[in-house]
């Protein structure tokens, strides 16, 4: 299987300088692991949810959730659910909370870019499969 990469914009700097918050972001490439290992990570990192449903079922379910609500507000619940899926498709040795800390959802413009990147990541994962549903 060829290597699959997705680009996500992460926070590279977050400091208070002279009373002002200074943040910097950069796109970083992450390698996807779409094999059975992703399901194993799902079972290991989120055992309570893994007991109820498998990763691909969860991914299909949360993929349908709109990230932007009708009011225009970003749904943090939907975003975190999608992040959970991506986290399992990456081979990280750090906890999910550390993965979430790489992003900053307080800035609307940044979040908009991140949402597009997440959507793209889901497309890459689904497109890589031979089986199309």
């Amino acid at each position, binding site marked *: 299987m060829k290597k699959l990469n997705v680009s996500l914009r992460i926070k590279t700097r977050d400091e208070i300088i002279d009373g002002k918050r200074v943040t910097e972001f950069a796109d970083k490439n992450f390698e996807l692991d779409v*094999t*059975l290992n*992703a399901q194993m990570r799902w079972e290991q990192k989120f055992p309570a949810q893994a007991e109820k449903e498998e990763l691909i079922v969860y991914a299909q379910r949360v993929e349908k959730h709109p990230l932007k609500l009708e009011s225009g507000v970003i749904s943090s619940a939907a975003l975190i659910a999608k992040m959970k899926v991506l986290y399992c498709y990456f081979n990280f040795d750090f906890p999910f909370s550390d993965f979430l800390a790489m992003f900053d959802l307080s800035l609307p413009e940044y979040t908009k870019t991140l949402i597009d990147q997440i959507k793209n990541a889901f497309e890459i994962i689904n497109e890589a*499969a031979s089986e199309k549903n």
Partner: protein
Amino acid sequence: MIAVFKKVSLPTPQHRFSMPLSLRYLKELGTAGIDWHDLHLIDLTSIVYSLRIDMALQKMEHDRQKRLSERGISEVRSASQADFDAL
């Protein structure tokens, strides 16, 4: 009230430790001789379900044969014109 509850004997739910799904998949794919290492999780799930359907069909066929043999029927074939004429 407490005394009433104490008299009621409800079966205690037993926690079931089921094998994680990934290990079940490994077991089923290993039995079928399929190398799972490079397979996409979506494809792999599809294969596992196909294997299960095949196994279920085999079991149904086996059960059908067993029921027939229990009734003393060794073979089932379509009736020919000669069979109808012989009636």
